[in-house]
């Protein structure tokens, strides 16, 4: 039970839950949810400062980047160039080279554009970035990303923000089997059992935002997700029983009166 850390690009973490920082009602609620989740990594977005009102409260005032690892994302980018530009700025703003790359294909589904994603991964890796890459749940695409320099493969379980849960356990499992870098389900988790399913399949971690932020009680859901990720991980390590087609009694048949 003791040490079950996971490592991405040489950095070791205890928590296998990564949480987003979008869609919360307030920074206070966001910070409380992060604390309840036990997450050691949070995703953040890069956006223009409001130069007309520079005194607005900042994320950094509530979630301390010295205590929680900021993972800058490229949400909203639809080309490799936009994503790379965003991450260059992120690296200058925070000094981080561990980043989350996502290059989107269309607004309706937010499905990744894999051609642009692969191209951006290669360029970023060449510039010294350590990209954790949001991608389709395709075992071949996952291998190609790894070859291009992805330090983690992050297939979607279902569309971003949908909360539909893992739609294809087979492809997620195949990606895990084929990968030599960490695999995290990114997107699609709706409730605790979805996170547990991902971990039971052998994922190294789960990344989620909306499932916590849009729960009626985000802090309680963050607690639930922490427990689900831990339970799923333990179940995976414990090794589940084989499935049977029919019943098998748990009480001995011998000595029946």
């Amino acid at each position, binding site marked *: 039970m003791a040490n079950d850390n996971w490592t991405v690009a040489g950095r070791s973490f205890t928590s296998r839950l990564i949480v987003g920082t979008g869609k919360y009602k307030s920074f206070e609620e966001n910070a409380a949810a992060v604390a309840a989740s036990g997450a050691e990594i949070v995703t*953040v*977005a*890069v956006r223009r400062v409001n130069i007309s009102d520079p005194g607005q409260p900042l994320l950094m005032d509530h979630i301390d980047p010295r205590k929680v690892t900021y993972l800058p994302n490229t949400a909203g980018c639809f080309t490799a160039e936009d994503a790379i530009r965003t991450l260059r*700025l992120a690296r*200058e*703003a925070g000094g981080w080279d561990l980043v989350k790359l996502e290059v989107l294909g269309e607004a309706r589904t937010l499905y990744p554009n894999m051609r642009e994603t692969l191209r951006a991964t290669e360029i970023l890796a060449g510039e010294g970035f350590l990209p954790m890459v949001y991608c389709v749940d395709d075992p071949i695409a996952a291998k190609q990303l790894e070859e291009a320099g992805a330090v983690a493969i992050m297939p979607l379980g279902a569309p971003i923000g949908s909360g539909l849960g893992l739609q294809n356990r087979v492809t997620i499992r195949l990606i895990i089997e084929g990968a030599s870098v960490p695999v995290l389900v990114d997107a699609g988790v709706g409730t605790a059992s979805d996170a547990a399913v991902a971990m039971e399949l052998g994922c190294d971690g789960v990344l989620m935002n909306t499932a916590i932020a849009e729960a009626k009680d985000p802090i309680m859901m963050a607690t639930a997700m922490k427990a689900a990720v831990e339970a799923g991980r333990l179940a995976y390590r414990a090794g589940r029983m084989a499935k049977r087609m029919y019943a098998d009694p748990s009480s001995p048949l011998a000595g029946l009166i």
Partner: protein
Amino acid sequence: MSLDGSAGVTINGERRRVASNTSLAELIAEIGLDPLRVAVERNLAIVPRSTFNTLMVEDGDDYEIVHFVGGG
């Protein structure tokens, strides 16, 4: 460059006039931002934070000033 020597620049898509001989660090302070919490792009090139003090704002410059916000 205008008659009074001020520079016309674009910051995050907004036009602004800046006094002549203004450094980027002074521009960031004038806007009211903490230079340690932002990243700056000038004419599509990243400006290293270490050069904020020495980089002088020039007429026609196009700046993007970004920071971290909540996101998934």
